[in-house]
Structure formats: structure tokens, C-alpha cells
């Protein structure tokens, strides 16, 4: 058994003629938190969707726990998803269900836990992300953006997944709420002993939650290392990105 939870080799994905991933190689070590940084439209979301099997890559291999996941059937996919959790950028909460039903979705629909137990468990998870029990019966549309993120996080961790994906967890939040979410992410990932893969362009968030950082540019991973190494690197692409400068080798396509 290798120590890598996720192993990606030579991953290619294109939409029509637009090449998005052009040979990505990436390893995520078990129990570690890897943050993939990169500009908007560089294919960060596509990378996550390929790993989850929501998109099918044209070429390359993705192994989770040493098992190939590219091209598996629906049944195997469902099994794979039972060890994953995901916090979506917009929350993606089910607005036809109440907050607690969202959090308890997996328990009710897949594990057939009875309603009362599921609700109690949902309230416990909600409390662990700092939400009061009286939020449980509200509808997601009645919550603020920060609270929706928390509910999304609660739903992602409720099934105690081995791998958690975070898609731009702090986008659209004020800096203080963003930091609260960062703390919650660290807490819940460490609490579960899970492996985490985050994509973001928020450098403050990346520094805080990452054990390792990888930078995606033009469909390839062009640099990876720890936060300390990132601050010392002389890679011009990374330097430009973390300094947020419009001058440098990365040209913004307008």
C-alpha cells in the first residue's frame, strides 16, 4: 500500500478544442491537506470533477487507494463517493429540504437511519461547525452566505469521509468569516483524520489550510511544495501569483 491517497498521472481533459488539463501529475499523501492554486479558468474545478468521476478525462490515470477510478461503472462510483465529501463553491444545498435534512441526506437516503437519530446526529454535526440547533429546521435560502458554507461543510463531513474536497471554500465571504471557515476546515479535516484537496485562489486561505501547495497553470502542475518553500521559491509564475501582480510571465487573457 503506497502512502498516496490520490495518485494522478498524465491527466488530459479537453472541451471541444479547448484543452483544459494537459498532462497533470499530482499526488495527495494520506492524511495531508493539499491546496491547488491557480487563476480563474485554469481548470482547477475540472481537476476535482475528474477525480470525483463527474467528468471523464480523455487520457491518463487517477488512482484512489491504489485503485483506478477512470472509467469505472455507476455502482463502483457510488461506492467511491461514499468515502468522499465535498464542499461546493456555492454551497449547492438542496433548497427543497431543510438544513438538517441536507446534513443528514446520506444517513437518510443511503444508510436508512431513522429520522430521529438522523436529526440528532445532524444537529451534533451542525454544532461542530458552530451552528445553533434552531438553525436545523430552517430552509437553506433563509441563511446568510457564511452560514450556508457552514451547512455545506457539515453535509460534507457528516458521513465521515476519508477524502474531502473544498471548491473555493472562502470565495464570496468577508475576511473574518473566511478565516472562521478556514479554522473549521482545519478542525474538521484533522478531527476526521481525512485527506483534503482544496482548490482556491485565496492565498490567505491557502497558507492557512495547506500542508502542501501545488500550482496549476495552463493545464499542468508547474510547481509544488510546502508553504515555506513557496515563500522562498524563485519560480516566476508562483511569485507573480502569490504577490498578485499583473506584471510577469502569466498573461491574463482578456
Amino acid at each position, binding site marked *: 500500500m503506497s502512502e498516496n491517497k490520490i495518485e494522478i498521472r498524465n491527466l488530459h481533459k479537453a472541451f471541444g478544442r479547448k484543452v483544459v488539463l494537459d498532462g497533470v501529475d499530482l499526488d495527495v499523501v494520506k492524511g495531508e491537506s493539499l491546496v491547488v492554486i491557480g487563476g480563474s479558468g485554469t481548470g482547477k474545478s475540472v481537476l476535482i470533477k475528474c477525480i*470525483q468521476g*463527474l467528468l471523464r478525462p480523455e487520457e491518463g490515470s487517477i488512482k484512489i487507494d491504489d485503485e483506478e477510478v477512470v472509467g469505472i461503472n455507476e455502482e463502483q462510483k457510488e461506492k467511491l463517493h*461514499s468515502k468522499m465529501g465535498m464542499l461546493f463553491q456555492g454551497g449547492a444545498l438542496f433548497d427543497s429540504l431543510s438544513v438538517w435534512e441536507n446534513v443528514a*441526506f446520506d444517513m437518510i437516503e443511503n444508510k436508512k437511519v431513522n429520522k430521529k437519530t438522523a436529526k440528532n446526529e445532524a444537529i451534533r454535526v451542525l454544532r461542530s461547525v458552530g451552528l445553533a440547533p434552531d438553525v436545523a429546521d430552517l430552509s437553506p435560502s433563509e441563511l446568510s452566505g457564511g452560514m450556508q458554507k457552514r451547512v455545506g461543510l457539515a453535509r460534507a463531513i457528516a458521513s465521515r469521509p476519508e477524502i474531502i474536497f473544498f471548491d473555493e471554500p472562502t470565495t464570496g465571504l468577508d475576511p473574518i468569516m473566511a478565516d472562521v471557515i478556514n479554522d473549521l476546515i482545519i478542525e474538521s479535516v484533522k478531527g476526521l483524520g481525512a485527506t483534503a484537496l482544496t482548490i482556491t485562489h485565496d492565498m490567505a486561505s491557502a497558507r492557512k489550510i495547506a500542508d502542501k501547495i501545488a500550482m496549476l497553470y495552463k493545464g499542468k502542475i508547474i510547481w509544488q511544495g510546502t508553504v515555506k518553500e513557496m515563500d522562498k521559491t524563485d519560480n516566476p509564475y508562483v511569485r507573480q501569483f502569490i504577490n498578485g501582480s499583473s506584471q510577469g510571465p502569466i498573461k491574463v487573457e482578456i
Partner: protein
Amino acid sequence: MFISNIENFLRRQGKPLVAFISRLGEFSIFVAQSVYNCLTPPFYGRNLLRQVIDMGFYSLPVVGLTTIFAGMVIALQSYSGFMRFGAEGAVASVVLISVTRELAPVLSALMVAGRIGAAMAAEIGTMRVTEQIDALTTLSTNPFKYLVTPRIWAGLIVMPILVLIGDVIGIFGGYVVGVYKLGFNPANYVNSTLQNLQAIDITTGLVKAAVFGFIISLLGCYNGYKSKGGAQGVGTATTNAVVSASILILIFNYVITELFFSK
């Protein structure tokens, strides 16, 4: 130069054709997937119940109003038309046949397509663009089984029931006009209706209703499921769901009639 002109010309002409064919293929796959998922477990009973209530119970007023006025107008029209050759006595049977075979199924289906097909496309479309469908997948739930299957079953179950109720209300509409406006004897009118009542009129109407229910749900779900591009995409999906369902309803109405009644 000349060759490349031809090539460009062909490319331009071919593009919409290729797009059309790939869309047709995409739709066929969707239909096959829907049928397969409708027949294999797991089934989400609670979702089915919600759809049945939405599509059935809350459509009752619309279907009732549509069919009662359809029955009334047929009575009035056939009376004034048939008077020309002294066949006023046929009003009751004309109302019966036109309501059960045509008016109740077609008009109810068109109304439900506008009410429910649009709502399905809008709801599923919004779920698509806000990543709720992806979220279902990541929660080990097949979005097809969770969203599409209950809606298609609801269409198949609910439409025939609605049409059966519509039949009764439509015939009653004809009776009201016949008796209170055109001066028919109530007992004679009822008698003449019952004497002409044939099983085939009702069954064809119900078969049509089930097919229309399938069409409404299928196109509502398909357009929602494949929608992209935010609010505008959802708007387009909603329009397409209603328009394409309505057209298919009218086409299949003819096809089914032909199957049953052409000799």
C-alpha cells in the same frame, strides 16, 4: 482557393446538422437512461408522492376549468351546426366522443405541460446550474433516480387519472348547456349519453393521457437536466420544455388516434 471555399461552405452548412444529430443522440440516450432507471431500484417513494401531489392534486382546478368549458362549447357548437340538417339529437353523443377521445386528454395535457413541465425544467435546471445535481452524485445518490424517475412515474400515473376526472367534468359541461340552454330533456340527454358510451372512447383517451404524461415529464426533466449557463439557460430550458412537449403531444395525439381508429 476554390477547394477551400467549398470546404468552408460545407463546414458552415454541416455545423448545425452535426449539432442537431448530436443533440438527437443525447436525447435518445436520456430516454434510454430514463426508461432503464424507471424499472430498476432504488425507488424514492417520498419524491414520487411529492410529484403526484404537485402534478395531480394541484392540477385539478386547471383541468376542471379547461374540460368543463370544452364540453360546454362543444354542446353549443354541435347544436347550432347540426340544426342545419336536423340532427340536434346527436349533441349528447358528440359531446361524449369529442370530450373522451380528444378534448379531455389533449387540453389537459397541454395545460399540465405549461404548469408542470415548466416547473420541472426550472427546478432541475436550477439544481444543475447551482451544482445541486453534482452534490447528489457526491452524496452517493444517482440524480437520475432521485430526480427524473419519480417525475416520469408521476406523469404516467397522474395524467390518466386527471383525464378520467376531466372526462366526467367535460360531459357534465355538455349536459349543463344541453339541458339549461338548449332545452333538452335531462333524462333523455343522460340516456343518450349512456347508450353511446363505449369502452374504446375512454381507453384511447387514457392511453393518450399516459403517453402525454410521459412526454411532459421526460421533456421537463431533459431540458432541465441539460441546461447550462445560469439564469438565462434555465429560462431557455423552461421555454423549450413547454414548447417541445406541446408539439410532441399534438403529434403523438394524431399517431395514437391513427393506431386505434384507422382501418
